[in-house]
């Protein structure tokens, strides 16, 4: 294994989450709809129809291209990619060829430490980035082949990386970061299981350190990040076995069988298909003037990896915290708002988020911006705990109570009498009560079993329903038992 390194490039198709399709007014998202219900003469390729470009698809494409640091062309063109397939009703796909929306670009992929190797950054270059329309779906049903045209004309960005990835794990990391980015930017739902994000992997191996590229195989039909990882791992192993056995790697197209966990050969790759690309005469070029571009990009948020670094630099968060808090844009915004409202110690805010708020999010499947426990309320609760106004366990239960009621923490504390009792005499009275009720324990304590102090404190807390200041209770008990 150590004698070889894998060379992997990923070809991704990203469904943009526009309301309507790229060239007609049909609804784009058909996940919950029966086959052939979101269709019209245009997207089913009736004779005589013409495409009309949905600007929202261009805008989302520009946002993505910009986030990938790609060069955006002020003038780009659509082209026809001609081929026959039943799910392609026009017999050509409207795509972009030589003058696509953007070119170049990269992603600085942080690769976490693993197997004793430290973390590192892998620069993944982007070879191609263009807009196109999705095709329909076919499926076999007995002797018949059924076609669903709902997906025809859903806007896609095709984005192809250079052969820059070096392991199945890196490929999986890339897809995770891409998915994070797509959702962060709001350009795609990026759900691989639903086909919003699709990935084909090109895999070859070569002696470690070599600079040339060997023949590659293409793995298709992988629809989860785990499947991509497993399929690539299997393929690397297979290629090493073949080479070790003195065989040549042939340029096959392989299909991943998810259930069996194996790769199957779909076809040998003959000479490259000739798609006879030519300019789509039915569409005008995309003229992206400075004003339009500026208008699109003014809403471009800080990118997740940039924000992750900033959370480490500016707030002194550990990488682990920064990574989780920037896993999703709403969560990271939430964190920053809470830190701002809290005013100090971002790590303390992070702890509350990582331990409690994340659990609430997972359980409710809400996003951070949908919480009734707003960043302001969270900051307020942490402050209550800091000043000793409530104790820690009350603070934690307050989180849930605020979320359930939407009321301000202080309001709940007042209404439910949750404030920590720091009144010496009130606690002293309860302490006396506890000691009077527990003669055996008092005896044991005095005989030297000082560990019973914790039990006494617990009894006091119990009687006061958790509102007592435990430190004060301990001091009083120690005094009374002395």
């Amino acid at each position, binding site marked *: 294994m150590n004698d070889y390194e894998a060379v992997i490039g990923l070809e991704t198709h990203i469904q943009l989450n526009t309301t309507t399709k790229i060239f007609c007014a049909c609804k784009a998202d058909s996940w919950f709809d029966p086959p052939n219900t979101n269709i019209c003469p245009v997207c089913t390729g009736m004779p005589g*129809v013409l495409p009309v470009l949905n600007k929202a698809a261009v805008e989302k494409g520009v946002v993505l291209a910009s986030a990938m640091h790609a060069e955006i062309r002020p003038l780009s063109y659509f082209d026809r990619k001609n081929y026959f397939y039943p799910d392609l009703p026009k017999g050509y796909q409207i795509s972009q060829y030589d003058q696509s929306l953007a070119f170049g670009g990269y992603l600085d992929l942080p690769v976490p430490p693993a197997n004793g190797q430290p973390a590192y950054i892998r620069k993944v270059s982007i070879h191609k980035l263009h807009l196109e329309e999705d095709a329909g779906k076919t499926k076999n049903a007995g002797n018949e082949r059924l076609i669903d045209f709902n997906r025809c004309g859903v806007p896609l960005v095709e984005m192809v990386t250079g052969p820059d990835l070096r392991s199945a794990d890196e490929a999986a990391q890339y897809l995770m970061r891409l998915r994070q980015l797509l959702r962060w930017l709001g350009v795609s739902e990026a759900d691989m299981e639903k086909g919003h994000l699709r990935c084909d992997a090109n895999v070859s191996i070569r002696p470690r350190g070599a600079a040339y590229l060997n023949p590659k195989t293409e793995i298709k039909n992988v629809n989860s990040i785990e499947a991509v990882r497993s399929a690539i791992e299997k393929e690397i192993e297979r290629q090493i076995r073949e080479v070790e056995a003195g065989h040549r790697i042939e340029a096959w197209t392989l299909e991943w069988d998810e259930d069996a966990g194996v790769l199957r050969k779909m076809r040998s790759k003959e000479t490259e298909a000739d798609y006879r690309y030519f300019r789509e005469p039915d569409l005008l070029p995309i003229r992206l003037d400075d004003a339009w571009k500026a208008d699109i990009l003014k809403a471009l948020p800080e990118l997740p990896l940039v924000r992750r670094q900033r959370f480490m630099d500016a707030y002194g968060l550990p990488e682990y915290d920064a990574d989780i808090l920037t896993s999703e844009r709403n969560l990271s915004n939430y964190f920053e708002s809470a830190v701002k409202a809290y005013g100090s110690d971002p790590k303390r805010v992070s702890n509350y988020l990582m331990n409690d708020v994340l659990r609430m999010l997972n359980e409710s499947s809400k996003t951070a911006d949908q919480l009734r426990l707003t960043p302001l309320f969270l900051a307020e609760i942490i402050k209550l705990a800091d000043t000793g106004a409530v104790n820690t366990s009350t603070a934690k239960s307050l989180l849930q109570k605020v979320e359930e009621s939407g009321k301000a923490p202080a309001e709940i504390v007042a209404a439910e009498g949750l404030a920590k009792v720091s009144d010496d005499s009130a606690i002293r009275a309860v302490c006396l009560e506890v000691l009077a009720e527990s003669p055996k324990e008092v005896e044991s304590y005095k005989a030297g079993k000082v560990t019973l102090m914790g039990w006494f404190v617990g009894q006091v807390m119990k009687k006061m329903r958790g509102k007592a200041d435990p430190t004060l209770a301990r001091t009083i008990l120690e005094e009374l038992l002395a």
Partner: protein
Amino acid sequence: MELCDIPAYELSLLLRQKQISAEEITRACLERIDAVDGRSGALDSGSLTPEDEQKVHAFITITRESALNQARAVDQKLAAGDDPGLLAGIPFTTKDIFCVRGTPSTAASRILANYTAPYTATPVTRMEAAGAVMLGKVNLDEFTYGSSNESSAFQPAPRNPWNPAHVPGGSSGGSASSVAAGEAALSLGTDTAGSIRQPAAFCGVVGVKPTYGRVSRYGLIAFGSSLDCPGPVARNVVDAALMLQVIAGADPRDSTAANVPVPDYLAQLDGGVKGLRIGLSPDYFRIAFPDPQTGEYREQPLPVDIETPVLRAAEVLASLGAEIVEDVPMPNTRYGIPAYFVISRVEAASNLHRYDGVKYGYRTPQRTGDLTKLYRQTRNEGFGLQPKLRILMGMYVSAAQYSAQYYQRALRVRTLIRRDFEQAFDRSGKYRLDALLTPTTPTTAFKMGAVYGDSVLMQYADQLTVPANHAGIPGLSLPGGLDAERLPVGIQLLGPDFSEDMLLRIGRAYELATQTEDWRKVKPLVLR
């Protein structure tokens, strides 16, 4: 004069004065169709009878009932005092290359013979919204691929009303013949290389190829998408202007339809030609074509019968105050056909991909059990010779290894042809033309069967019309006289982008000035 022979503009006046009803007009046209059209084009229609050879055969589908209903609706609006629209009660035919909801929309091809469109093309929608009455769908060359209509899968093919032994031209042959025979006042055609202007010239009617993008292509079954222009066929310039007024303009369903305001064509129609600069180019008075025997490129002057009416028109316009500018060089005209051959075939082959027997249209009755065989068998049986030739040629010249030397080169030629026109029309250039005056066609209507079979030579019938399609500029063909066989000769006016108003104005001036000439009194043979 029967109602069906009265031009649209006058019908419109009579209708509004309540001297006639829309239903009467429609019935007159339907009677004319019954009298002269013969049997409509159909698949597998058997051999021609002697009677067939005397008829026009413009139609594939006659929409008698819906036409009468439309006409009655116009009459009701008129009776109620509502505005019935600019073309109220005017009967028209639609080239069967346009989709019209609920009608067979066949493209004159077996592969679409059973296809009923679920939607209506924008120009037809606009005609109907303006109150025009659609009488039916008329025949054409299969998928518009031809200049004679003989290639239609729906036979008998249309014949020239001036002499049914001759072709009506094409591909809008059904449009031109239906208007010439008085079956309809107007027809909606398409022009990709001359397909409106050439049949208009052959049938002695007026045809307008508008600027590319002036009229929406939505619903037009595509041939060469970068060249196709829907446009009017009419019996005179006023009617053509009236129809263009209705169908022109931007369309949210066609992004190549221009967002340029549509002028009032009628208001400017009688503006005259005083002071206008009208050019003549020697490059439009000769044709270059490959010798059918040797394949060698030959050049020859146009027949005198073709040349004379153009020169006479120049004299007429000069006498009306226009300035005639001679010897305008249009050196790239001769490359128009070869470049067109390449560009149109590449687009056509791609546009024909969708006819695969899967979704609609013809599917081979044979059980193929294999997708590729289904495609091959369906397309082999469903397409006629012309689509097949164009697919072969288009696939060849767009293949990766040939594209540079054919397709990319043809695109450069196209730019050069456009440049010829830009220089001629340049306001501060040497020629500063308002329009170029040329013959429409190198010959008058040829005999049925005379050219058919030689696809290359057939294509050269478009030699003088195709440059306008390459350049995207408008062209107008109008009757300029008759040849020795008493067949119509067309003259053509070409102008800069969106100069339809100017071309119509010049055409109208010529039409008025020659109104009383003897040749205008001669009727088509089928009406004599």
